[in-house]
């Protein structure tokens, strides 16, 4: 009976390189179940020296990868800017996945130079250097076109993880080729979709003195920035819209904060909501095909939902308090928002029709001002800006019960006059948080792991804030 099930009769699809990882994953699961203290000593490696590759690895686990300089595909062929490509791969791997920052690129180059004439890979030497992975690239430049092949080797198994060819990449942005390679490495090694090809929308300006700002897009490594809007006035708080191909944002082009939509490939913006007073803080639910936003046309800030044309408006809150900063849950059933209806400014959760109201954050010692709640992609956590000792910090609580309060940032080391860290936005896989930090005295966009570690600035131009991480 059971054997008739199609699932049993189907041959298991296996590529020749993946089984070692599948086997390791299975073994790791057993190890995690049976050995309580497993994670403490051997991060990433078991006693027999084999590599542990699993998405559930401990927080501070990092792969060590060696990427020697790319070699010419054919002897004497012109090369693109290989240094930029390699730096771009390292940057994406370390910033957007669990890879260690390379300690000595010189040693890597020396070892590769020694083994290259032999035509073989000296896995023992790479292992001795502590490398678990080795990425060998060969490239050539024809006109504007970069052609590259890469091989990823696992040094413990002395096996090839994957081999791939990248063609028709423009030499105008070698970083973009680096993103593609890094994304594939991340996918093959962690079994998760990489973030290297995702983009972040944000507000960029000429400095806090200038009120002219525009919506910008950049890749998640902070590169290939482009200006999306041409408003020539003040704009605020972008959100990703339908299918991840639209951006909704507030602009004062009519001397009022109105909500507009624009396709990320360009084109003329359309007016979504132009009610008197505020039309701000949009957030799109792909499940409901609706925008949730704050309108103040009733003489007071309230939460509304509407479709992306601004039609079929529905009002959700009806208080004389300020209700603002709404954010959909990933399943589209609930909305978290900020309200000062109680004591202090706290986060509340309601159903998508305005019922089932409950308070999420509590008044605690030192913080009574929380804002900008954003739901993690798995629906379990809510990150928000929390004022603590006069500055903002990024904090998280459990969405289910408001417990598990955890502050992820610490702005104690910021310059004086800093407002701290605010405006969190989750990466699509929930492993990273992008936010605005005033650490250097100027608002810039930073990224960190979801546990608050490895904070890194993505922008360095005049003045940038309000990031929103898209899942395209």
């Amino acid at each position: 009976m059971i054997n008739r099930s199609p699932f049993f009769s189907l041959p298991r699809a296996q590529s020749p390189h993946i089984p070692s990882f599948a086997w390791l994953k299975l073994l790791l699961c057993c190890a995690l179940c049976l050995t309580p203290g497993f994670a403490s000593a051997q991060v990433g490696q078991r006693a027999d020296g084999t590599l542990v590759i699993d998405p559930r690895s401990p927080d501070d686990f990092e792969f060590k990868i060696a990427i020697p300089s790319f070699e010419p595909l054919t002897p004497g062929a012109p090369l693109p800017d290989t240094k930029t490509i390699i730096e771009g791969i390292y940057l994406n791997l370390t910033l957007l996945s669990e890879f260690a920052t390379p300690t000595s690129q010189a040693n890597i180059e020396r070892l590769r130079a020694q083994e290259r004439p032999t035509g073989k890979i000296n896995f023992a030497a790479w292992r001795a250097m502590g490398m678990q992975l080795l990425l060998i690239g060969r490239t050539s430049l024809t006109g504007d076109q970069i052609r590259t092949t890469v091989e990823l080797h696992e040094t413990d198994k002395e096996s090839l993880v994957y081999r791939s060819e990248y063609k028709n990449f423009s030499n105008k942005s070698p970083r973009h080729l680096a993103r593609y390679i890094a994304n594939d490495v991340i996918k093959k090694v962690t079994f998760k979709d990489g973030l290297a090809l995702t983009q972040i929308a944000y507000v960029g300006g000429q400095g806090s003195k200038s009120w002219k700002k525009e919506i910008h897009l950049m890749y998640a490594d902070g590169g290939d920035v482009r200006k999306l809007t041409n408003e020539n006035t003040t704009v605020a708080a972008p959100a990703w819209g339908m299918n991840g191909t639209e951006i909704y944002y507030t602009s004062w082009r009519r001397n009022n904060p109105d909500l507009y939509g624009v396709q990320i490939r360009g084109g003329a913006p359309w007016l979504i909501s132009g009610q008197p007073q505020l039309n701000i803080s949009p957030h799109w639910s792909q499940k409901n095909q609706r925008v949730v936003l704050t309108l103040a046309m009733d003489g007071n800030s309230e939460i509304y939902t509407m479709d992306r044309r601004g039609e079929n408006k529905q009002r959700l809150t009806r208080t004389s308090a300020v209700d603002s900063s709404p954010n959909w849950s990933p399943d589209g059933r609930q909305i978290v928002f900020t309200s000062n209806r109680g004591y202090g400014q706290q986060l509340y959760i309601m159903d998508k029709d305005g019922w089932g109201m409950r308070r999420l954050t509590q008044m605690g010692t030192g913080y009574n001002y929380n804002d900008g709640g954003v739901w993690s992609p798995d629906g379990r956590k809510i990150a928000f800006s929390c004022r603590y000792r006069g500055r903002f910090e990024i904090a998280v609580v459990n969405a289910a019960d408001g417990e598990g309060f955890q502050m992820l940032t610490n702005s104690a080391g910021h310059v004086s006059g800093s407002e701290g860290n605010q405006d969190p936005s989750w990466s699509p896989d929930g492993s990273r948080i992008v936010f605005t930090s005033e650490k250097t005295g100027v608002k810039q966009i930073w990224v960190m792991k979801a546990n608050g570690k490895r904070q890194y600035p993505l922008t360095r131009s005049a003045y940038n804030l309000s990031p929103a991480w898209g899942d395209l």
Partner: protein
Amino acid sequence: MSANRRMWTQLLLLVVVASVSFSGCSKMKRLWPFGSKRSLQNPDGEIFTSPQGSFFDPVGGEVTALDNMPTDYLDIDPSTGDVTGIPHQALPPAGAPLGTTSELPIIYFAFDSDQLTAEVQAALDQAAQWILNHPQYIIQIEGHCDERGTVEYNLNLGQRRADRVREYLVGRGVNPAILTPTSYGEERLADPGTTEEAHAQNRRVQFVVFE
């Protein structure tokens, strides 16, 4: 064109005033129609409750003791649950402004406050008189904040500041249809510094005159 527009806004105002006067008083004491059956599970009982009585809670819940509502909150019409106050009618004017005038001075606020001090009220009395004497203009009321606080919080705070000023002017007889309050939050700082003096300069409402 302009006369036509004015006629329509006055007509709209008339309708709004009429509907408020017909419906407002009689329904204010009626209980929330859904009754207590669908009232909310209030986590700690006090969060929606003010010292004077029951606060309104969203969509569901029961409204009692409306007569004891604190006066600094707008009245709520329980038949719809809408905050009545003074509804917004006028969209902001398009095009370039004529500019600012010393007759309509910049008004400053305390930190995180939308309260009008006695000094400010005296200035607004003068401003109201000037606006009444110049009914041909549309007055944009811009609410601004200092940069402390989140972007969204300050947009809401700027809106509250502009609305307080608008309500005060309407109380002095100004036609609400020619007042267009708007908020810039912390987006347009008068002084980008981080000193207390700079912050004080930024917490303001300023008037911009449109044709």
